[in-house]
């Protein structure tokens, strides 16, 4: 198969980027899109040109490293698919394909198609955990969890942190990602003690990173390779409201007779 590729090239954040055009031929339909880029790169390297930088690692849809906007759609617009799971047989021979990086200000371009997603890690560091040290713990069966609840928590926890939700959201909001983590822990008994402080600090960090706000477009859910539902955004909103409206500002405060 042959393709015309339009690929975003940007040497570093300091340089302006542009779309560059490449022709590629003799691509097997069973080749993945990333393998096609590998092939393109090998051709470029053999010519002494710098290859197109793009991120990938596991190449089987679990690590969340790969991150391309293909023809305007994060991960290509196929259902529950990561970039590394896109195969060339899904295109037509002779197609023009536009390949761009995630575009969001909190995800600055590092080079070409590679962006810096450390903002996500900082959101996680702000509270995406249960504070426990390593050491003996109570037996898990002493805290039974309904299988459906564990399953729902897993539905949220299955987020691979790829950032497609941000890339796809017209507002570049990170709500789905943040909500997935908040809901995962918020649904489980282990996550209860820090439930309300967690949602506040994670949301605050999310905002500080400069992501947009949610207007419930639902694009994120559509692009999410793990099919994470925007119901978790609702859940996070609920927890956030509860945390800010109902939860006391200071627990140890005293009542004095007035």
């Amino acid at each position, binding site marked *: 198969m042959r393709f015309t590729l*339009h690929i975003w090239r940007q040497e570093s954040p300091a340089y302006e980027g542009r779309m560059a055009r490449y022709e590629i031929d003799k691509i097997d339909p069973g080749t993945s899109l990333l393998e096609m880029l590998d092939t393109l790169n090998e051709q470029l390297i053999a010519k002494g040109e710098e290859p197109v930088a793009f991120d990938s690692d596991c190449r089987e849809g679990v690590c969340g490293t790969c991150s391309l906007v293909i023809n305007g*759609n994060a991960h290509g*617009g196929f259902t529950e698919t990561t970039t590394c799971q896109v195969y060339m047989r899904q295109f037509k021979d002779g197609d023009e394909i536009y390949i761009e990086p995630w575009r969001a200000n909190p995800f600055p371009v590092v080079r070409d198609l590679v962006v810096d997603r450390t903002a996500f890690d900082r959101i996680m560091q702000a509270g995406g955990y249960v504070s426990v040290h390593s050491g003996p713990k109570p037996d898990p069966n002493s805290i039974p969890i309904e299988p459906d609840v564990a399953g729902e928590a897993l539905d949220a926890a299955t987020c691979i942190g790829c950032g497609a939700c941000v890339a796809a959201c017209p507002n*570049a909001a990170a709500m789905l990602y943040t909500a997935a983590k908040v809901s995962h822990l918020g649904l489980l008994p282990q996550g209860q003690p820090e439930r309300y402080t967690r949602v506040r600090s994670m949301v605050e960090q999310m905002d500080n990173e400069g992501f947009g706000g949610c207007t419930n477009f*639902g694009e994120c859910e559509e692009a999410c390779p793990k099919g994470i539902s925007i119901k978790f955004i*609702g*859940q996070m909103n*609920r927890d956030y409201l509860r945390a*800010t*409206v109902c939860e006391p500002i200071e627990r140890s405060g005293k009542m004095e007779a007035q």
Partner: protein
Amino acid sequence: MMQRVRRFYENTPGQKAVVAVTGIILFGFVLSHMAGNLKSFLGFEVDGRHAIDHYAEGLRTLGEPLLPHGLVLWGSRAVLFCAFVLHIVTVIRLTKRNRRARALPYVGQREPATNLASRSMLATGIFLAGFVVFHVLHFTTGTIRMGSFEHGKVYANLYHSFQGGLAAFLYLLATAALGLHLFHGVWSLFQTLGLDHPDRNATLRKFAIGAAVLIAVGFVAVPLLFFVGALGEPTGAAAHVKDW
């Protein structure tokens, strides 16, 4: 208290909740406003006045004699005004942030999952804001004249205004904008307030459609029927106009 408000309003979900709550208030208003407008169809009441004029008057005397004349009206106006302003101010804040978050658009062609309504929230909103200003100047203060105008003679004002195609058309547009705004807004607000759930989602969607259609049809009926002449000329019966 201020601390709590600040804590709440500091972050996007809190701001978004403000949009939703003010949205509910505005929605409540348009709903009752629509119901009020429909009184145009009720013809005359006993004392020979148009039902809608009577109703308009009733609004001003609501709460009397317990409360002073006009208090309820002015109170509601104040609440509405605040909600309106807060809705807009917060939306502006959020929109600015959203614009900043995505500096460069994509070159490639997207296949969006959004709908026309959700994409055009800002456009319909801005249009509505402009419309409301115009509308108040038109029907409430009578500053903008489209046909003759007389305080308190609501039916007559409506009749005269909507003989002209321009006014009817403008109101038609506004109604369409409101319908679209609510088509997304009413569904969206449940999500924003965390009241959504997959179990209820279909119902919420239907509710939003119902609300949007009801409001749109309810509103549009009045200018339309005046325009096509289904609603007749106002009677000469003088309404007793009180200071408002």
